[in-house]
């Protein structure tokens, strides 16, 4: 199957400033229970959400999806995405049954070319979570590499 053409660099750079719709997300008890079990830990006290939720809660709360994030960067395929880093800041713990407000945008996007010949587009997404009082409680910064194949 032929690879998709490499998108123009300007199209990638133009992603900076893209804002996702945003919205609210409430982690329900069943979801936190199953998530925590997947990590191999016991449930945390007082309905605290396991920090592993800091990946999907911001994305879904921003009213986007992993698939849409792949598509925005014109990913060649699911398998062409590499993770540079996940940076999670927890100003206070997250709790079950609390409706968090999520805002999100693309803060960095540019083409990178290494001496080895590897070409990828580096795209950074920042998600902010606020509690119902409007207090910022957490931030997730996702930086992915959209690897490009040369045909």
């Amino acid at each position: 199957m032929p690879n998709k053409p490499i998108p123009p660099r300007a199209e990638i750079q133009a992603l900076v400033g893209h804002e996702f719709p945003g919205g609210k997300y409430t982690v329900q008890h069943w979801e936190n229970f199953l998530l925590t079990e997947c990590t191999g830990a016991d449930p945390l006290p007082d309905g605290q959400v396991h920090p592993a939720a800091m990946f999907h809660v911001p994305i879904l709360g921003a009213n986007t999806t992993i698939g849409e994030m792949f598509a925005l960067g014109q990913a060649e395929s699911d398998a062409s995405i590499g993770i540079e880093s996940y940076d999670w800041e927890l100003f206070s713990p997250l709790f079950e049954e609390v409706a968090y407000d999520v805002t999100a945008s693309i803060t960095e996007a540019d083409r990178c070319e290494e001496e080895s010949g590897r070409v990828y587009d580096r795209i950074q997404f920042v998600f902010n979570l606020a509690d119902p009082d409007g207090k910022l409680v957490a931030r997730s910064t996702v930086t992915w590499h959209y690897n490009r194949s040369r045909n």
Partner: protein
Amino acid sequence: MKVSIGDDIPEWDMPSVTRERMRTMAAILRDPNPVHWDPTSTERWGFKDKTINQGPLGLSYMVNMLHDWAGPTSIKRFIMTFPKAVLSEDHVIARGKVTGLREEDGTMIAECDIWLHNDERGTLLKGSAEVRLPA
């Protein structure tokens, strides 16, 4: 809690990364990527009959290590990179070391290097964390 620079954080052991947990995690994350549940999708990387653990799940083992060490609300910041894949049936051990200490608003913060070790393939994930230490 008495902590010094250079201290090792007590290890956290995951004896086997299971496919069942990856499948549950795929549903929770709404992550359609087949590398997490279809072993035929990972053959291109030479991972015969293996599935690849989700990033958030792999780093969660280090979260659990930090929780067991300093408490369930201790993590202030957590930065993770993913140099190698964590695969189904891997035995992995979360490890960490205190690299710095500072006081912030009356709370001691430990700066830590953290990583996920596998006996066959070495360090799979690595990063850093800032941890609020209990008084």
